[in-house]
């Protein structure tokens, strides 16, 4: 059994014996020839199975310690594919602090079909337990949460979920299996926006699902094929290419994030720094709301853009970007205020990042 650092570097190697290729080929073929009726090579139609996609699916299942992986056309497509496991009348319990896109598909999408969601603070197991009803069929948690970086005790929630026979789904986008393996802690399904750290280069949109257990995997496989929100062969290959450096990148992201967190904590124009001590994501509140736009425009190196987890540093403004679909009163009540900025710390030299932030923040006091 190899360590995850070894596994990621080796994805796709030894996958083919005829040429011995180290880097797996991209199979574009949509259809596969059958020698005769009932004689399949295991591949029939690209939506159902593709050799390139299969490699990334097997890799993520292995990294997460699950039984089977499924690659989707985006992180949201992964979540919607999971939602198809449920039916009218079912209920979900969901992290209150949540990516706006997930909130949107639950509230404006699946609600229409009779699936309702209760939003709670998932870091306290008692709060979750109180929210469970007879109709609760799944608990969906982000940990750490986006953008407030609250961690949840996955093992404790998993025990609760087992007690009530509820599925536990964990969005592991922020930490990746290198820092956190929810299935080993008792979760049934792990999802990823692989656009983020797994892909890591801001050049591919992708989602991944990992299931544990025969029944869950069979159902996921059925819906993955039926709905058809699958990842393309080329994007599967790009994702594999990105994942090969995941271990190196995560180390650098984390190292830089730690230094930036302590720098921001000591800056006079910053009020709060939210950093759980692991990973490359942190959030912070600057002193005055009217400073936000100038601050973002003052940045020379760091990019103001939506998304995260890439080699380049990004700062995002949740209020108008990632969390724009969450009604303002709900957003404010959970602490996603208009002074909050989310920082995806890249792998640049940390001194350069600090210098850029420092000059952008310091200019604010002189402007005001």
């Amino acid at each position, binding site marked *: 059994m190899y360590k995850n650092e070894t596994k990621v570097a080796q994805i796709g190697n030894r996958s083919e014996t005829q040429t011995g290729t180290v880097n797996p080929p991209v199979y574009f073929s949509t259809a596969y020839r059958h020698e*005769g009726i009932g004689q399949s090579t295991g591949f029939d139609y690209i*939506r159902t199975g593709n050799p390139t996609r299969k490699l990334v699916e097997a890799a993520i299942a292995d990294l997460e310690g699950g039984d089977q992986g499924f690659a989707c*056309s985006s992180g949201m497509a992964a979540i919607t594919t999971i939602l198809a496991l449920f039916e009218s009348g079912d209920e979900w319990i969901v992290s209150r602090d949540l990516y706006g896109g997930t909130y949107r598909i639950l509230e404006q999408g699946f609600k229409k079909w009779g699936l309702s969601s209760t939003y709670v603070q998932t870091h306290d197991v008692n709060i979750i337990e109180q929210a469970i009803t007879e109709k609760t069929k799944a608990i969906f948690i982000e940990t750490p949460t986006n953008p407030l970086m609250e961690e949840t005790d996955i093992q404790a929630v998993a025990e609760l979920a087992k007690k009530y026979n509820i599925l536990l789904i964990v969005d592991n986008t922020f930490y990746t299996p290198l820092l956190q393996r929810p299935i080993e802690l008792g979760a049934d399904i792990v999802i990823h926006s692989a656009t983020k750290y797994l892909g890591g280069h801001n050049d591919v*949109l992708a989602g991944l699902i990992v299931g544990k257990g025969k029944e869950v995997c069979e159902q996921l496989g059925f819906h993955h094929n039926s709905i*058809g*929100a699958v990842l393309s062969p080329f994007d599967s290959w790009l994702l594999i290419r990105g994942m090969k450096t995941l271990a190196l990148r995560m180390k650098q992201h984390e190292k830089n994030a730690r230094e930036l967190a302590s720098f921001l904590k000591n800056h006079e124009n910053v009020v709060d720094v939210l950093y759980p001590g692991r990973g490359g994501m942190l959030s912070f509140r600057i002193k005055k709301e009217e400073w936000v736009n100038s601050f973002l425009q003052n940045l020379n190196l760091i990019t103001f853009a939506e998304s995260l987890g*890439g080699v380049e540093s990004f700062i995002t403004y949740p209020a108008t970007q990632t969390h724009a679909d969450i009604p303002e009163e709900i957003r404010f009540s959970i602490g996603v205020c208009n002074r909050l900025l989310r920082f995806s710390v890249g792998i640049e030299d940390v001194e350069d990042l600090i210098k850029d932030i420092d000059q952008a923040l310091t200019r604010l006091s002189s402007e005001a």
Partner: protein
Amino acid sequence: MTKEHNFSFETKLLHNEHKFDPTNGAVSVPIQHASTFHQHSVDEFGKYDYGRSANPTREAFETVIANLEEGTNGYAFSSGMAAISTAFLLLSQGDHVVITEDVYGGTYRMVTEVLSRFGIEHTFVDMTDLTAVKQAIRPNTKVFYVETPSNPLLKVTDIRAISDIAKSVGALTFVDNTFLTPALQKPLLLGADVVLHSATKFLSGHSDVVAGAIVVNDPDLAKQIGFLQNSFGAVLGVQDAWLVLRGMKTLSVRMDFSMKSTLKIAHFLQNHPSVKKVYYPGLTDHPQYEIQKEQSEGAGAVLSFELESEEAVKQFVELTEIPVFAVSLGAVESILSYPAKMSHAAMPIEQRLKRGISQSLLRLSVGLEHPDDIIKDFTAALETIAAKSQGEKVR
């Protein structure tokens, strides 16, 4: 290129607003891999902010397909089923769908096994029978779902008549236009509201990309589909969007050639003693030949035919040398499929037989090989089968 051109379809495939890149003149649309885009101000975001919401390469395909279907807005998806699934997300719990009975197996599966769990009801009808269609209407009917020609029996539905019925009850008409493409049929002009495509098939045409599309011509529907595309996120990858665009440049020439070959092969099969029945709407004795002629500019390049027995089908598949025996259709290579075990395997056998999708039915998607080569190949296979069965009878 902002000027309004009145180019014909064949020209529009090549000369559209993406014929060259505005910054450097490149005549092939660049592939924009960026998943996100730098923003200059908190108050005003650029047109592109995140790859799932909008991407310039995907947008090029979306505007081209919208233009070709004579709609206002196009949306690209990671597969035909992703397009169909997204379109069905327009519905709510308690709604009802009237759907063509010999629909593609994947759509059948979606409607019967997924939508039904979310409280969306359905009735399968023979869409060629307008009385049956009207009888299937319920107070909560919201969508009429049409495939024409249907898969695999090539039944032709009168799109205008169905759209009229749908409008009279305030419902939408969805048309899967995969088999004919806008090169031959433009459902929006016949009154349909939503056009669906498995762009994996004729649009891209090279068996090398899986993709789907939706086209609409109503601003409100456009807004809803745009919202769902972004929310659900089953979008087409950028490399794939480029591959579809590349394939579409030859759509007309491919379709023309394949269609001529199909008619020739259909006549050949019709006159062959070992073939029980041929299904192709380009044949004058097809029951909906007149409707097909009226609403489209051709019958397309897919036909189905029935042999004497399941055993004959089995041998035919093994004996023919040219067509690929595989699922899918609409490619440069001719593809022979066995609906019972391939495209319609998701349909229970009794449902399949009820619809006339027998165990001895084969579907042929005609490619770009010379039709005489295919006819020669088929003749030899059918002769061998006949000789074998003759031999068995003698014994």
